[in-house]
């Protein structure tokens, strides 16, 4: 055995320390340490710093460092939890999470069933196409969707609406021709007022966020559900068919039980990601209009970087981190996320 520098360090520290370091295995620890320290210094240390900041009255970056701050205890949290802006942000974050999660599950389940269906040819290729969003940078996807929702007269969605409008008008014209004895015009409620400024209205912007979030995350759902569906033995379906179970019956009693656990677990992970969604609202319209759609992280980021309310922003971020901690706890309790840790 060669005695390297590391071995000698181990031996030396063994001699100096009062307890038996062989249990510690200094060699392994020393190899892991640089990575762990680097990660912690950019993750745990800032979190600790945030907690500290949230209990001061720091405003802009200068005061944070300059030492012009006073310890104010939980004042920021009291202010925060009595601020209607916070509750708007908090509410919209959970609404965003819930709506996008439901749509993700429905879309994921539908696509997965389509892509495992016996009547569909070329499923392998289709699956490759379906997961395309996974292979693209998030910033690419989000800026492209921002273009799709462009409020300009010739934005893609406005063009589609224009096509729809002209189709309705043409149809009404045909009906008008056919029923020559009465004058038929298009009922107003069937036509869309053009152009729609998708990102300027609160709820249309919200639905734009949800659409993009679903498009970002559905491949993950599809992969998980497809692999679960493939594990369902065909005999189970056949047996159910023989017993006279209809399509709906088989869906409820064969398909759903098979995908329940994986879907629940994937839901926890994707919900945690939605909760921390920042890029979509930020790139679409900075959480607007009039700060109505600021998801929690966007809210915190704006308070700090743009409005110079550091202490207040820290309190927001600490609150967000607490909820992410809750998701972590859920993932460990309800999923087998850390299974590999124990088995290894």
């Amino acid at each position, binding site marked *: 055995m060669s005695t390297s520098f590391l071995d000698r360090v181990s031996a030396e520290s063994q001699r100096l320390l009062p307890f038996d370091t062989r249990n510690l295995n200094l060699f*392994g620890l020393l190899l892991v340490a640089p990575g762990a320290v680097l990660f912690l210094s950019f993750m745990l240390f800032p979190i600790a710093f945030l907690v500290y900041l949230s209990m001061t009255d720091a405003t802009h970056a200068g005061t944070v460092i300059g030492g012009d701050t006073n310890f104010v205890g939980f004042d920021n949290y009291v202010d925060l939890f009595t601020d209607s802006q916070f509750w708007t942000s908090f509410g919209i974050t959970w609404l965003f999470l819930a709506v996008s999660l439901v749509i993700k599950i429905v879309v994921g389940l539908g696509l997965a069933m389509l892509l495992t269906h016996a009547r*569909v040819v070329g499923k392998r290729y289709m699956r490759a196409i379906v997961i395309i969003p996974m292979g693209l940078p998030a910033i690419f996807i989000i800026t492209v969707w921002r273009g799709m929702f462009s409020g300009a007269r010739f*934005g893609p969605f406005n063009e589609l609406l224009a096509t729809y409008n002209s189709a309705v008008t043409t149809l009404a014209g045909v009906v008008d021709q056919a029923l020559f004895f009465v004058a038929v015009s298009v009922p107003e409620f069937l036509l869309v007022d053009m152009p729609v400024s998708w990102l300027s209205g609160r709820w249309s912007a919200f639905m734009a966020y949800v659409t993009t979030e679903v498009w970002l995350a559905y491949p993950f759902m599809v992969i998980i559900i497809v692999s679960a569906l493939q594990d369902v033995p065909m005999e189970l379906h056949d047996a159910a068919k023989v017993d006279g179970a209809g399509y709906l019956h088989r869906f409820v009693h064969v398909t759903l039980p098979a995908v329940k656990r994986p879907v629940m677990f994937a839901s926890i992970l994707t919900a945690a990601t939605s909760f921390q969604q920042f890029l979509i609202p930020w790139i679409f319209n900075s959480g607007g209009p009039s700060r109505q759609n600021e998801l929690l992280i966007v809210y915190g*980021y704006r308070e700090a970087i743009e409005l110079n309310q550091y202490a207040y922003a820290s309190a927001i971020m600490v609150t967000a981190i607490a909820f992410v901690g809750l998701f972590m706890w859920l993932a460990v309790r309800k999923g087998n996320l850390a299974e590999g840790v124990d088995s290894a």
Partner: protein
Amino acid sequence: MIAVVALLANVIGMLTTWVHQKVTWPMRVARTTRLTLEQVRTGKRSVRDLAKTVAGTAGAIAVLVVLMFPIYWIFTASLSEGAGLMSTEGVFADPSTYNLDAYRWVLFESSFTDALLNSLIVVFVTVSVSMSVVVPGAYALSRHEFRGRKKILYGYVLFTQVGAGLSIATLIALYVLFVNFGLSNNLLVLGLFYAAGAIPFNTWLLKTFMDNIPVSYEEAAVIDGAGRWEVIREVILPLSKPGIAVVLVFTFLAGWNEFIVARTLLSPENYTLSVELYALATAGQYDTPWTQFSAFAILFAMPVALIYFFAQSYVESGLSFGGMEG
């Protein structure tokens, strides 16, 4: 999880088979069609049965077309420079007017090349720093038992899978420190930041890969008189090459894809590609240069997409982190 690494790692070896499969698909489609028609003609398969399959497949294709609409739009937009995109009726420009002018603009007239250089500097730091701590860390977590090992692994998995968005929460704290120490507009610091963020996932990935290397190889080496370092150099590292390649790709992506931290910390002269892309997309509410934006976006996403498409069948069958199949 283990499946991901093993399968992803084989990507390079399987490439030829993959290309062959992809290239020959029209021939296979033709053969299948001929056989099916033969079956219908000889009465082995009913027309009704065939119609059901055709309808099912057509429905699936229709769903895919709708889903992939944004991708199609961005591609056609990038080819429509000066061709009346978004100014006439219809979402798409006339195909006969497609041209590559937008790409020419991006490559020769825009800030693409400067931003590319900045991106590459950041990515270089990210990859080299994270690789130098990920490989030893993964080895230690895979092969050595020490105090706190499980805690570190748990922490890594949780932060990777659940807390990925926390970097923005921590960003506001780091921003203060960076500004104060004059490090905010520094590509090397940015690369270091990404490297730190890439450590948990990649260490975990490589660790699970190394878990699959049989311990008997190391035992044999030890019996032959190899020391601790020789075992690592002669056994572990060579056998981990495919896993290391995968980690290399992921750390590259970590630096390449990130946007908001770069945007917050950097000044315009140091903007990376992702920040320039955003600047182009938000240039104005009504006068965003869509064709130029599209070409820029495609050139930015291309390296990432290529990596994924070559690995896609493995991604599809393997992206089941930590036993997610339940």
